[in-house]
């Protein structure tokens, strides 16, 4: 049984790379390019892990994170925040809102995969 990964990012090229990486690791992948879609998708797809960008249209990654944490069905879902905003305050904010890991872009693909695997283990 493969884990389900929800990728949320508005940069098409980044989505492409993440999707490729996750599928290569054998995960089931869903993609959302804005916050609202992400929330709908999460409810249907019930992912084990969400890769969440912060700067997105309609709903920011912080809002999505907070909303996801409010859903009882998604209590076990891990959240990795992926963002180009690397300031200390934003890292703290993301973790405070319920993210499990906060990774700044650009990231190492190898590290990201290891991080995901350890979270899902």
């Amino acid at each position, binding site marked *: 049984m493969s884990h389900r990964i929800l990728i949320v990012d*508005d*940069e098409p*090229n*980044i989505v*492409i*790379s*993440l999707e*490729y*990486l996750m599928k*290569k690791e054998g995960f089931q992948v869903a993609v959302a390019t*804005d916050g609202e879609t992400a929330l709908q998708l999460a409810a249907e797809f019930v992912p084990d892990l969400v890769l969440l960008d912060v*700067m*997105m*249209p*309609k709903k920011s990654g912080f809002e999505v994170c907070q909303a996801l944490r409010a859903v009882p069905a998604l209590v076990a879902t891990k959240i990795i925040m992926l963002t*180009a*905003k*690397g*300031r200390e305050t934003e890292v703290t904010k993301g973790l405070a809102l319920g993210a499990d890991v906060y990774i*700044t*872009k*650009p*990231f*190492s*693909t*190898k590290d990201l995969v290891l991080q995901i695997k350890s979270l899902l283990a």
Partner: protein
Amino acid sequence: MLQSWVIVLASFLYLGILFAIAWYADRRADTGRSLIANPMVYALSLGVYCTTWTFYGSVGRAAASGIGFLPIYLGPTLLFALAGFILHKMIRVAKANRITSIADFVASRYGKSQLLGGLVTVIAVVGVIPYIALQLKAVSNSFAILASYPEIVMPATAGAVPLIQDSALYVAMILAAFTILFGTRHLDATERHEGMVAAIAVESVVKLVAFLAVGVFVVWGMHDGVGDIFAQAAAIPEVARRLTTADSPAAYGTWGTLIFLSLFASLLLPRQFQIAVVENVDESHLRRAVWLFPFYLFLINLFVLPVALAGMLHFQGAGVDADTFVLTLPMAHQQEGLALFVYIGGLSAATGMVIVETIALSTMVCNDLVMPALLRLPMLGLATRADLSGLLLEIRRWAIAVILGLGYLYFRVAGEAYALVSIGLISFAAVAQFAPVVIGGLFWKGGTRDGALAGLAAGFVLWAYTLLLPSFAKSGWLPDGFIAHGLFGIELLRPQHLFGLTGLDEITHCLVWSLLVNLGAYIGVSLQRVPNLREARQATLFVGGAEAAGIPGWRGSAGVADLLPLAGRFLGLERAQEAFARHARQRGLKAIEELPADTRLVNFAETLLAGAIGSASARAMVASVVTEEPLGIDEVMNILDEASQVRAYTRELEQKSLELTRATAELREANARLQQLDRMKDDFISTVTHELRTPLTSIRAFSEMLQEDPKIDLPQRVRFLGIIVSEAVRLSRLINQILDLAKLESGRAEWTVAAVDVAEVIREAAESLTVLFAEKHVILELDGREAGLIVLADRDRLMQVMVNLLSNALKFVPAESGRVKVGVGGTTHEVRVSVTDNGPGIQAEDQDMIFDKFRQGAGTSDVLTDKPQGTGLGLPISRQIIEYFNGRLWVESTLGAGACFVFALPRQAGDNDASKSTGGVP
């Protein structure tokens, strides 16, 4: 025996003796053993009030109006006897402020105004010159009468004698020389002339003794006592009338006027002020003078009426001028020696007056008129000259000569029109104009410089119009029509019946009008504004004294032994003892006896007494036991000076702290601005970082993936590499634009400014984008008709703007159906270019925002969200460029109906058709 040379010799001998006395007194003063530090000398020197007007004129006036001569002496008597406190205050104030003259006094009181000092000087000079003329006339007449002995011949009328033979001219010259010798030998720092005062005191004695000698001779030599004269006089009706007082109500009014007038004159005449105030060596001398001087006046008037009556009896119908009785009566009885003595007495009266008056006037002319004027003439360089004393003496000498010259001129022109007494009264009325500003200045703090100027000027003008000009007219110097019919024939303006005021003699009439207007203007104008700082300060010094300044008035000390019984007298001994014991306890002492004899104790006693008998009485009572004088004005002034310095310092501090507060506020504001800028910079950097990281993320991810898995199939690999290349391009474009914008914003961008044809730029920009438009199948319409519109700009930069606007439009229009249209147009002032698309449009609230950095329009107001292609820096850069050339860049759009970007640049004069206005621009 009384040949002219004898008289001349006697005159010079007398003047020589006077000079010797003066010289001696000056010597004594220099060695510190003042000859005049004596209340007797002070009182006698005040006798300078009695001039030839008294010496000869009193008898003349008595012959004309009986005891009508008296008010002239009652005024000063009243002043000294009843209003000595005014004089006392004047002396104290004058000493404290080192006042040199009446002009100085007035000027100093109203904020040290030079203008005011000058005005007082002018009034004094104009007013007193007739008086000086009078002295010249008296001396020259008495000389002429005496020289014709044994005949008794009235002298020729003034002006009838040729100038060269006019003894008055020589009298004037001799007096001028003598005054110069007396008054301007050296410059006295205190403006005091001890030698002169000594000589004046001697002169007072000489004229008094001379007059008394005549009186004794007339009463007991010619008649058998006063009773005899009066009895004889009563027998002749014409003479007997002089034995009654005034014969009409108006005459009583005149009495009042004269008392009033002479009261002020004895205070305000320049020579009186000089002797009584300036030359006073010790305030305490006044205490003796208040009865000695009236006594002197009493003595010198003692024989006036008997002499007048005797003269009238003796010279009945002989045509002898009553003004000369004093001289002619001894002559008629062959008393040569007495006649000569009388002549010397008259000379004495004249020289005394002329010397003091001209010295006082010359001081005023010099200090308040000439020096202020000279110091203002920069070419003379006086302001920087160290020693001006020689110049001052020179000016005073010339002033003396000129004043006496003017006196002589007045004598020649107007001297015969009036009896002696009337001339004197004209002067009195002139100086009476000083009364409101001087007396008011001593007792009312509200007087201002403007008020004083207005009062003095108004009073002076009325005086001149109602008294001086008529005196000129009566002496034939002016046409006298205006006296009878008024100025310009207006009856109301008749100078001696102004506004229909009749029934008064001319002096009273003048006084009523001039003082009324004077006082009214002084008070009225003063009330127009609050005294300024300087005036208020002087007012405090003049009016207030120590008490008003709130300075404890006691320096002296008195012990419990004195103060306790004193308090006991008013409070009862028991209560006083209780109070003193309480005071002792407050000061931590056990018994009343331990209280030290100090200022605090005195102040306590005074306060204690004040509660019972009022502060003024308390002060007086305490003064009776306190050993030392109250605080001198000098010290008060020092304290005031310090106080005002402290005030000034405090003000300075306040100002400084105000400045500091202001500076702090500015700094705080600047700091806030800096912080805001710092935040903006932080945000900018954070945004830039984000923008740079995004393409970097893709590049790194794909590169790593390709590196790790070399077996990725070819199409995948090509796709990934394509992404890497395009993200790298995006990254470098972003970096370029950031650098470009930084250059623009910091002003370091290089510009090549030239005349640019807008249409050409548009065409070139469109050509460079033809391929892109074609790829997306978007139609680009060019409005090519408007060639030749010239603007001043950098051609490449303008191209950059154009390309940016066109690619923006291309970015947002839909593929296939997109349309972009470029319009060009111009008014006389500017050229407008518009780029219109049929894209989604921009909502109103975003239309400003899109010109901010990293903000891109996407139909929502979210930042950096729905990613259109591009950096979000194109529009900010474009706007910077357009604004650099004084143009504007803006957008017009409705959501859903496309957008229209427009820029306008100032049109360059000299293009092909500047006046043509065309359409094509929204």
